[in-house]
């Protein structure tokens, strides 16, 4: 009888754990980065999957988010630094996803900061499904993805971001 109760308890604990695992965040280091397929400024759809084989920084930002805009020149430096190699083939990419709602505001910042990496948006502000998929609670937010599409860093900025990109490129 005691053994049966123990077995029952064990099953409950096991079930609770499975349940907790199921509710665990999708956006975690070691997980595959969910697909993003959104329109560029020109209107053509660009997918995150199309960047497989490169180390990709998925940068979630918006023109209305002051700290995000302030970070753009830093990202520009990082972008140029990791794409300076003699090889013409790009090994690092930034996949900028804007949570803007109005196209002119988005375009203005792209022009002002001479952003020359991928930029996509559905112009749906906080209602963008990508905000839900990527479990974004606040901006700025970013996810670093390795050549296989696996998340290797979440919300890294400055030196920590540079080091992680460098390490991922060497692999």
């Amino acid at each position, binding site marked *: 009888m005691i053994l049966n109760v123990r077995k029952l308890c064990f099953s409950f604990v096991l079930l609770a754990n499975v349940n907790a695992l199921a509710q665990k965040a999708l956006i975690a280091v070691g997980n595959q980065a969910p697909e993003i397929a959104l329109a560029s400024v020109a209107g053509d759809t660009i997918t995150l999957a199309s960047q497989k084989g490169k180390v990709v920084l998925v940068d979630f930002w*918006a023109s*209305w*988010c*002051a*700290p995000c805009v302030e970070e753009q020149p830093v990202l520009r430096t990082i972008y140029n630094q990791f794409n300076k190699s003699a090889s013409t083939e790009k090994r690092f990419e930034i996949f900028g996803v804007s949570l*803007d*709602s*109005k196209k002119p*505001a988005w375009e203005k910042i792209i022009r002002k900061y001479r952003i020359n990496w991928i930029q996509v948006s559905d112009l*749906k*502000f*906080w*209602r963008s499904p990508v*905000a839900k998929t990527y479990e*974004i*609670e*606040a*901006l700025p937010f970013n996810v670093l993805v390795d050549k296989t599409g696996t998340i290797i860093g979440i919300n890294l900025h400055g030196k920590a971001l540079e080091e992680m990109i460098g390490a991922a490129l060497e692999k």
Partner: protein
Amino acid sequence: MKNFKQCMLLFSFILLSISVKAQTKVEPWTDAQLMPTSQLAALINDPKADKPLIINIGPQAVIKGSVDVGPGKEKENIRKLEKMLSKEDKNREVVLYCGCCPFDKCPNIRPAFSLIKEKGFAKAKLLNVPKNIKTDWIDPGYPVN
């Protein structure tokens, strides 16, 4: 040694005064003028309730029935808000909201709320969106446009 102690004392006073100043930062709204999201959602969902004028002063008019003025940090939008308010009864309840970012980082709510106060709207409210419109309005399933 005495000098060191005096220095430390002075330093503590400076720190204390900075923290007191930070705590007493005056906002254009009072606590009573902050409307809870649940209260506004209930008003929108109640067909018999008198609806307040709900104005978006942020990036997008997310809330059901709200009118779009645009980010309050832009002078052009403040002029738009002024024009809109000039047609309204000053006793009407008006709810402003943004929801781009937490209150302390939002560049839009202060210029807009200062204007509505200046125009003498007795029932002016600011929607209490402490984090952003996703977490505080969309995620709980409140009505959207």
